Every structure is written in C-alpha cells, then in structure tokens.
C-alpha cells in the first residue's frame, strides 16, 4: 500500500502505527516538516520506507541536510512511480 500523508500532526503517527513493512509512506505538503530531524516527536518505523515530495520541501526552504537520513526523495514523476508500484493508495487527512 501507498500512504499519502499531508499533515504534520497525529495523523502521521496514526499512519505509522497501521502501516507494515511492505508499505510505503509519502510525505507531501505540510507533512514534509515531519521529515526534519530536529524538534520532531514523530517516531518513524525504520522498516517502512518513507519518501518526501522534494518540490514541497524546496517550496518551504527545507533541505535534505535537515532531514532524517533514512528519508528518500521524489519529485512529481517519482510520486507517479510510487503510485504505479503500489496499490491500493490511502490518503490520510
């Protein structure tokens, strides 16, 4: 499954609690703030791949250096590739 998370709050925690090893989490919009290592209370599960939509990071002035080292990055084309490879897709709001 692909989970699309767009908020920097408890919703991401709910998502991580329910996702499993064969899933993928994509952080978009304000959820990309959760990718930042400093000041984040979100505990990621290292077994679940986490991607961040890099255009949303750049738009907010957030760089890869500030992010957790396990975060992977995609642009919109990469977003589409994640959709190609994973089904179903669940959006968390």
């Amino acid at each position: 499954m692909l989970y699309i998370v767009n908020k920097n709050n408890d919703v991401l925690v709910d998502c991580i609690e329910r996702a499993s090893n064969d899933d993928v989490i994509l952080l978009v919009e304000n959820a990309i703030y959760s990718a930042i290592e400093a000041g984040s209370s979100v505990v990621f599960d290292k077994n679940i791949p986490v991607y961040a939509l890099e255009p949303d990071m750049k738009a907010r002035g957030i760089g890869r250096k500030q992010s957790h080292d396990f975060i992977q990055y995609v642009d919109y084309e990469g977003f589409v590739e994640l959709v190609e490879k994973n089904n179903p897709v669940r959006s968390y709001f």
Partner: protein
Amino acid sequence: MKTLFFIVDKPLHGDVKAQEFLDTVLMAAAFDQRVILLFEGKGVFALLENQQPELMGLKNVSPILSALTIYDINDVWVEEEALKSLGIEKNQFVIPAKAVARDEIKRHMSLADHVFSF
C-alpha cells in the same frame, strides 16, 4: 466486482463531509461493488447511539448508518484496538459492527482495489 474500503477515521460530526462520505459508500453498494466500511481510531465515536447533532443544527447520520444493510453493506467493521483504547463497548453502537484486529484489517485492506478516506 471491485473491493472498496471506506475508512471513517474521524468522528462524523462538525462538518457535512462525513454525511457526503456516507453517500459515496451507499453509491458504491448501489453499483454492486464489495464494500467494507471500517471505523478506525477516533472514527469509532461515529457509531455511538444517542447522538443529538440536531442540537447544533446538523443532520443526524444515524438513519443513514441504519440503512447500510438495506444496501447489502454487511461488512461494517470497527478496529478492535480503538475500542480498547477509547473504552467503548460494542453495545453502545447504533448499528451492529464486527470488531476486527488491526493486523486482520490490514491484511484485507492490502488486497482491496481502492481505499476511500475523507
């Protein structure tokens, strides 16, 4: 026939989105798809009986929930872990729902064709 998962993961009241979400659930059933309606996390509050949304001028969705069986939607699930953590008993619900463990839910959801949330 496709398997469509509909997830209520927040309480139903406070906006009209929930009511509109249930409309899509009924429409999916009218199209003869396999529908699973899951109440997860704080969404299980939506099933509580004795709700009085009329006090806020909102429509009561309980009659829509009661209509689910008329539409042959018999897979109404609640997340077992949510019941425990929120201290809610199934006999407080407005309609019968099956308590299903998170792992089991996940196993089924992974096989679904599409997942709806709001």
